């Protein structure tokens, strides 16, 4: 551990620092602003939700964090710190709305894919994949093919896959968007449990306001037309979150505030 001259500062150094992050695409000669003005920090181990309507740039922001898209000049995107280094192309795990499992691979081999791509030792990877399947409650299913699983189970496999190479940052783009409402709520509770056990930094994109408040320690609100960041709201709800919380007054107040920011109240 490098000793810093100012220990307080090291303590406060965020894992991810975004300043004036913007992204414009050029389509058929016309410029199109996909994201502007995103400035916020994410601490290591934090669970942050990005919420907003379609076209607000939340998926663009996620792709910038994944290193799949460059941000515009003038933007600052820094991930990691000397105390907590981040290796692009190595330390990122992703889960999308669709499970995107390889149909011809059994569950265990699907989970192992990222580690295979990174060339990690296979024996350890298999162990880890088994542990993760256990964590997502699918230890019985490792020999099954994806088509033998329900949509919710497939998405659990995708979440295990996003963790198998032990990434520091996990990005989730509407991971439960294709599930029915009840399965989705169950998966939310499940995901919080996985997050607590794994200690990962998670950035999750959703357009479900309730989902964002329930999951996030912070909710970053993005608005569309023009696409920009509207607010960064710390969610001070009890750390042990259960579904009853969704009926509480505090939960309702946060939700109302976000609806208001999105011009929907």
């Amino acid at each position, binding site marked *: 551990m490098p000793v810093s001259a100012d220990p307080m500062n090291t303590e406060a150094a965020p894992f991810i620092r975004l300043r004036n992050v913007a992204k414009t695409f050029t389509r058929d000669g016309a410029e199109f602003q996909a994201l502007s003005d995103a400035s916020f920090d994410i601490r290591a181990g934090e669970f942050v939700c990005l919420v907003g309507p379609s076209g607000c740039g939340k998926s663009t922001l996620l*792709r910038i964090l*994944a*290193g*799949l898209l460059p941000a515009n000049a003038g933007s600052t995107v820094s991930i990691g710190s000397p105390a907590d280094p981040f290796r*692009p*192309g*190595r330390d*990122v795990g*992703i889960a*999308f709305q*669709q499970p*995107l499992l*390889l*149909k*011809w691979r059994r569950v265990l081999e699907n989970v192992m*894919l*990222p580690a*295979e*791509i*990174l060339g990690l030792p296979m024996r350890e990877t298999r162990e880890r994949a088994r542990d993760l399947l256990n964590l997502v409650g699918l230890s019985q299913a490792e020999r099954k*093919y*994806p*088509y033998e699983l329900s949509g919710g189970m497939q998405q659990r496999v995708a979440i295990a896959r996003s963790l198998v*190479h032990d990434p520091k940052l996990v990005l989730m783009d509407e991971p439960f968007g294709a599930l029915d409402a009840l399965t989705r709520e169950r998966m939310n509770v499940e995901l919080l449990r996985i997050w607590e056990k794994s200690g990962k930094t998670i950035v999750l994109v959703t357009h479900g306001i309730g989902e964002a408040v329930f999951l996030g320690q912070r909710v970053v609100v993005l608005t569309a037309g023009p696409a920009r960041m509207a607010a960064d709201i710390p969610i001070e709800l009890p750390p042990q979150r259960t579904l009853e919380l969704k009926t509480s007054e505090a939960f309702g107040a946060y939700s109302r505030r976000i609806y208001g920011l999105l011009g929907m109240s």
Partner: protein
Amino acid sequence: MQRKTLQVAGIALLAHLLALLAWHLVVTVGKVPAFILPSPAATFATLGNARYDWWGNTAVTAVEIMGGFAIATVLGVLFALAFTWSRLALTLLMPLLITFNMIPKVALGPLVIVWMSYGVVTNIVIAFAIAFFPILLTTLRGLRETEPELLELVGALHATRWQVFTKIQLPGSLPYLFSGMKVGSVLAVAGAIVGEFIGSEAGLGYLMLQVQVRLDTAAMMMSVLLISLIGIILYGLVSALEALVVVRDARLG
């Protein structure tokens, strides 16, 4: 599972026997003359006629079909791979191949005979020419059928092109390849027979032309049955290989 497969096979066999029975009834009840439509029994009886060299002719046709089909599969897959890897190859060769495919292969037959004289090799070429394109097209489609988000998922891990190809694109294209092979197997049969009709000195298509002159309709029917049998065996081999290689859910049917 096993039991269900047997059941399905049993029903398939029954359906074929019923078709034979219907054929028999049409001939006997309708009193159809034998030179128009011989009975199933009369048709199978021609197998005893040694002058027709059934074994030899069937073997020749089978070699033509299988040969043309095998070459079409190998080249179809190779071209699909080349087109996936090289944008230049795709833009340069694909339009040519599409034009080539528009040529009716029957029209190509007499030319191939001029170039290569008639015989087994010529008919293999015609069978290949007709079976090649669908195999190429479906394999090409399969290689491109990868979800863009899956490519992002591995792209964020800096996956190499080779990794994407071997771990995602190639296995993902197999169901398409088999679908193309099934279409190709049917076409290869037609190609070989067309070749034999245009010019040949052996094979079931050649035999059909010989016995047609003698109005031996039973032998013609028998030839058709044997040609179909070769096609069925080829199709069965492709399906069996598919069952072995492709996970059930991924099969295109």
